[in-house]
């Protein structure tokens, strides 16, 4: 297209973008915007609904519990995901392909099927409980925050493994061999040479998993206990049962802002979001188009 045409604003290309913008604006942005204005503008301009979040005695407890659960999930996915991603960089192309497909399985598995399966696995008399009893433990994970963390970690593992895999894959492993050739202990070689190089992928994986954990609704509602609800359930309850639209809007805005800040941070560090989107939609060349 000749440059002279493009310089004349606005470009006719915007006509192609317009329908999508109208749809997204009407269906998502307007409701979100109205929810923000409702939270500060009912009955007139006020921060009372935000103050109430921190003084009603419930919301703060739930927010802290949600953050702790998210932290536990982040640690679990990191502890399991780092060695897995490292293994992916070490094996041959065929095994790596299998490991990649396995990582992507949680993306494919239906939300309700997966949560249903976790109820079966974790409930009293379920396989996990039977296994625990063999070791003399009578511990039921169903209807506990621990059970929620186990179920959430499974589905969030890809969001840890994928950024880690791209970070670890870029490290030249000969550096490790060099360190050991110069007399370094394997642990020291890992800690002083490999770990610092992997830190970018680690940080973006940690932030991403933590952020996504904050918004989980179905898993805590089905696998968790009603007495120990997380913030998403509280949001749902305020909206559909208590009809406290202002309180729900204020709480929703807090969750939204925290999530967006964390995601923007992770994105700045590793370009993770685009990488996830690309893997999720299986279009390898898309990274170049975005960024």
């Amino acid at each position, binding site marked *: 297209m000749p440059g002279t045409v493009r310089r004349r604003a606005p470009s006719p290309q915007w006509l192609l973008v317009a329908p999508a913008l109208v749809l997204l604006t009407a269906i*998502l942005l307007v409701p979100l915007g109205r*929810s923000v204005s409702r939270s500060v503008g009912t009955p007139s301009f006020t921060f009372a609904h935000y103050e109430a979040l921190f003084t009603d005695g419930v919301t703060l407890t739930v927010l802290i519990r949600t953050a702790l659960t998210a932290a536990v999930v982040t640690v679990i996915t990191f502890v399991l995901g780092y060695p897995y991603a490292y293994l992916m960089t070490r094996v041959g192309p065929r095994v790596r392909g299998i490991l990649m497909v396995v990582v992507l399985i*949680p993306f*494919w598995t239906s939300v309700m*099927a997966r949560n249903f399966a976790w109820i079966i696995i974790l409930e009293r008399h379920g396989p996990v409980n039977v296994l625990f009893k063999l070791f003399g433990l009578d511990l039921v994970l169903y209807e506990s925050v621990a059970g929620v963390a186990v179920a959430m970690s*499974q589905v969030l593992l890809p969001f840890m493994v994928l950024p880690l895999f791209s970070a670890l894959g870029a490290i030249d492993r000969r550096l490790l061999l060099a360190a050991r050739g110069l007399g370094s202990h394997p642990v020291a070689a890992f800690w002083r040479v490999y770990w610092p190089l992997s830190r970018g992928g680690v940080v973006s994986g940690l932030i991403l998993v933590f952020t996504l954990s904050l918004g989980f609704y179905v898993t805590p509602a089905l696998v968790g206990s009603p007495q120990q609800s997380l913030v998403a359930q509280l949001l749902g309850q305020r909206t559909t049962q208590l009809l406290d639209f202002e309180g729900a809007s204020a709480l929703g805005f807090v969750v939204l802002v925290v999530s967006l800040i964390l995601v923007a941070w992770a994105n700045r560090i590793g370009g993770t979001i685009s990488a996830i989107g690309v893997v999720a939609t299986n279009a390898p060349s898309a990274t170049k*188009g975005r960024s």
Partner: protein
Amino acid sequence: MTATVTRPADATPPAAAPATRRRDRAIDAIPWWLKLIGTVVALYLILPTLIVIPMSFSSASTFQFPPKDFSLRLYENFFTNPVWLSALRNSVVVAFLAALLATVVGTAAALGLHNLRGRLARFARTMLMISMVTPAVVIAVAVYISFLEWQLVGTFAGYVLAHAAIGVPFVLVSVTGALGGFDPKLLRASASLGAPPLRTFWFVTMPLIGRGIVTGAVFAFVTSFDEVVIALFLRSPDVQTLPVQMYNSVTVEIDPTIAASSSVVVTAVTAVCLLVQFVGGRRKSR
């Protein structure tokens, strides 16, 4: 990306004698405990999928694993019970219409944004992608309250519009990816040969980015078909989608038909994903 990253580790200098190469490999072997962890994590990732299929052949009316007896009772109930059937039908209709809408507007937006530069275009792209990074429950609450006023709660139009909006990012990403290797000179060539824009789109652009569009459409369909959080807020006694009915069957009814439903959904979604990959792969290798 994946192909290049591990090259350095594998590539031993060709000058090295076989003996030293073998010693290198012994020093740098994959330790057994790493393989063990990898296997355990892989099992953890596929465990729910492994559980769902045998559960669906259970003959019990409780959620017991492993099932004591096997039968096709749950499948029979799933495909004959009007409640489950209408939920399935609603989900298919909503997902089809939502995917159609998302694909049309998403593809157009990807084509437009491909030729646009500058801050405004970047901002527009971010706005279109925003649902990917917004917690579903936050969207659900905001959409529910607004839809109450617009009288869209519990209507087909409500489900379709909300699901189309969250499907657009998938279409945008995959079509943008397909456009990455697209040479704009082809459009000028086509125009100079006398083809009107629509004809050019259909015979030049479409075949080249078709795979991206199909991939995006499939993901938009699956996203809607599987979406439960927004659907839980928008549900009405008359119109419920399949994931909502599955949710009810766990929380309210304790109906093991969910096992058959889960197995059908998991199998169907996996089949569709594999099909897209297979078709795409074949076209690429041609």
